[in-house]
């Protein structure tokens, strides 16, 4: 095991799979000469050449659509969409095509494609700070992955590339610099679904994913000092959803908070909460709290942006309110 950043873990996964299988290629905007807008593919153009590291025009539909077509013919494209905000330009290709072809043509066509994209914020303004993972998770035929740690990033990306179905792989711009232990094994593969218990606790369960999992652990540590034992569940994949760990946890703690960075209404929190209510109804001592982003277009000014996104303070407040209710 070595300590590497989330960024480096992703680069390792891509590099290893490209060496393992020459049917794997990368296509995306500025992944070559520029080195990737978040530097994940820095050096790849020199290492693998322009045939396998394609600097695409700004054409999100074209990037995803050609990747689907190549996947249909047996290649294993990894398409990069610079941020999830631009991914919605390619939503027709992802939703009306990648997700449908295998079923619609009675199993004749397979689409072994990965779409890597990025959520995040940081004074980027209203059109560059959104989270749409819930939209992808709504669509049968897609697999949706949102790794929180370098190890998950590497192991799940490798599995996504080797898999036979279209995978929407959502990274987080504020995680690229975060370090963690990552196995060096070339065949380090992780399943594309399966929630994980990150921290045990008896009092309340925080169900979350991606960068918010890190936030949840920090808050849990603080709350522990006040004698509140928080259990933290990282969903890791949003389609298919593995609800069992969260449900079992809530059956034990009888309290839950859902933490996500997207807008609250119709966000991931709605589904995660609904399923917990459905399966642990008789165990809940209080309604489940949803901590999510406030429902405004993201303002640029940092004093306003700060108010919009979930933070430790808001999370801790929600935990206490949920515990103290009634």
């Amino acid at each position: 095991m070595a300590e590497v950043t989330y960024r480096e873990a992703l680069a390792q996964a891509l590099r290893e799979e490209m060496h393992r299988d020459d049917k794997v290629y990368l296509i995306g905007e500025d992944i070559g000469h520029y080195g990737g807008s978040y530097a994940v593919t820095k050096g790849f153009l020199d290492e693998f050449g322009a045939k396998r590291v394609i600097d695409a025009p700004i054409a999100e539909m074209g990037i995803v659509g050609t990747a689907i077509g190549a996947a249909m013919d047996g290649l294993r494209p990894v398409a990069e969409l610079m941020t999830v905000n631009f991914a919605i330009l390619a939503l027709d290709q992802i939703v009306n095509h990648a997700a449908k072809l295998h079923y619609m043509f009675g199993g004749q066509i397979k689409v072994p494609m990965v779409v890597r994209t990025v959520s995040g914020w940081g004074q980027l303004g209203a059109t560059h700070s959104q989270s749409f993972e819930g939209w992808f998770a709504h669509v049968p035929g897609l697999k949706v992955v949102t790794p929180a740690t370098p190890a998950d990033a590497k192991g799940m990306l490798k599995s996504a590339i080797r898999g036979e179905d279209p995978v929407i792989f959502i990274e987080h711009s504020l995680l690229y610099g975060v370090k963690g232990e990552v196995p060096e094994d070339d065949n380090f593969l992780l399943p594309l679904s399966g929630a994980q218990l990150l921290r045990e606790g008896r009092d309340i369960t925080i169900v979350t994913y991606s960068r918010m999992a890190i936030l949840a652990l920090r808050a849990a540590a603080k709350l522990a000092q006040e004698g509140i034992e928080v259990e933290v569940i990282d969903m890791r994949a949003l389609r298919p959803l593995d609800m069992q760990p969260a449900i079992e946890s809530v059956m034990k703690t009888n309290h839950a908070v859902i933490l996500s960075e997207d807008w609250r209404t119709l966000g991931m929190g709605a589904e995660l909460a609904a399923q917990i209510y459905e399966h642990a109804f008789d165990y809940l001592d209080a309604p489940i709290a949803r901590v999510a982003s406030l429902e405004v277009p993201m303002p640029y000014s940092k004093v306003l942006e700060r108010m919009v996104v979930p933070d430790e303070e808001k999370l801790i407040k929600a935990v206490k309110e949920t515990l103290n209710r009634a």
Partner: protein
Amino acid sequence: MTTETDLKLAAESQATKANGASVPITSPLAEAQKKSDRERNLEIYRTMLLIRRLEEKTAEAYTQGKIGGFLHLYIGQEAVATGVISALEPDDHLVTHYRDHGYAIAKGCDPGRILAEMYGKSTGLSGGKGGSMHLADVKRHFWGGYAIVGGHLPLATGLAQSIKYQGKDEIVVCVMGDGSTNIGMFHESLNMASLYQLPIIYLVENNLFSMGTPLKEHTSLPEIHQKARGYGMPGDRFDGMDIDVVYEHVATAAQRARTGGGPSLLEAMTYRFRGHSMADPQFYRTKSDVEEVRSHRDPIQIHAQRQIERGVFSEADTKQIADEIDQMVIDSARFADESPFPEPEALWADVYVQEHS
């Protein structure tokens, strides 16, 4: 009649093998190319007439409620699909829009399985899950009909990218209508195809209408083949009602694509004799508009007349073929009628290749 069904499906068994051909691809139309002038032209006649007759049967089945949803007939445009496929190698790749029946037939798909698909039967080309707009026969490199206008252009471009990536000498033909050239995906696809010099032909069937909107009202450049200039790509327009002309022009573009010359944008001038779909009240044109074209430019008439005049085949030949085809249509309809609907289990099959992992 399950025996007949079983036989047909056995013969077609590789059809559902995902991604690419498993056995050498053949089709009557392709084979005929290597045969005599007579054989070749009879096969072309047979193909066009089968398209026409099967479409007529399809329309009838729709009115009988055996076919549901949207149904877009190919009647009037037969020379395009027939000309395109006869100018290609059997293993060349085909991607079309939803007006796909004629192409399925020209590519050599079984007419019984085509009808069965429209009937929503398990024996259909796509197991009854696709319907009229989503016929596909991947083992024949027919990657299917697509119903999001322009949505299949990037897919076809990606297929061509894969072919070049793997150094294969196959090419891709991507078929669309005139109205489809206005959508963003047309622009993104043609730019990438030209930028990467991909082995693909974008073939526009210009039937003068985007649903009910006349050509001049939906595009700023009605000479659609000239849109190729925006991509440094060759463009070419020709009469799509004359099979021989279609063959000529497609063969030239195919040769270019196959020999590293890159993509082309072809525009086949054609006309549909029926509405956009069965639901179309056709307020946007008169009966006589249609009669005018049907009486002077019916692609099947043009072909038959010429070959009879040339003495390549005779009235008698056409009669005999007509009889064969009538029987084929009857058999196909019976196959579709007698085929079973999908079992309930089929509902959950093929959502994912790997349900778990």
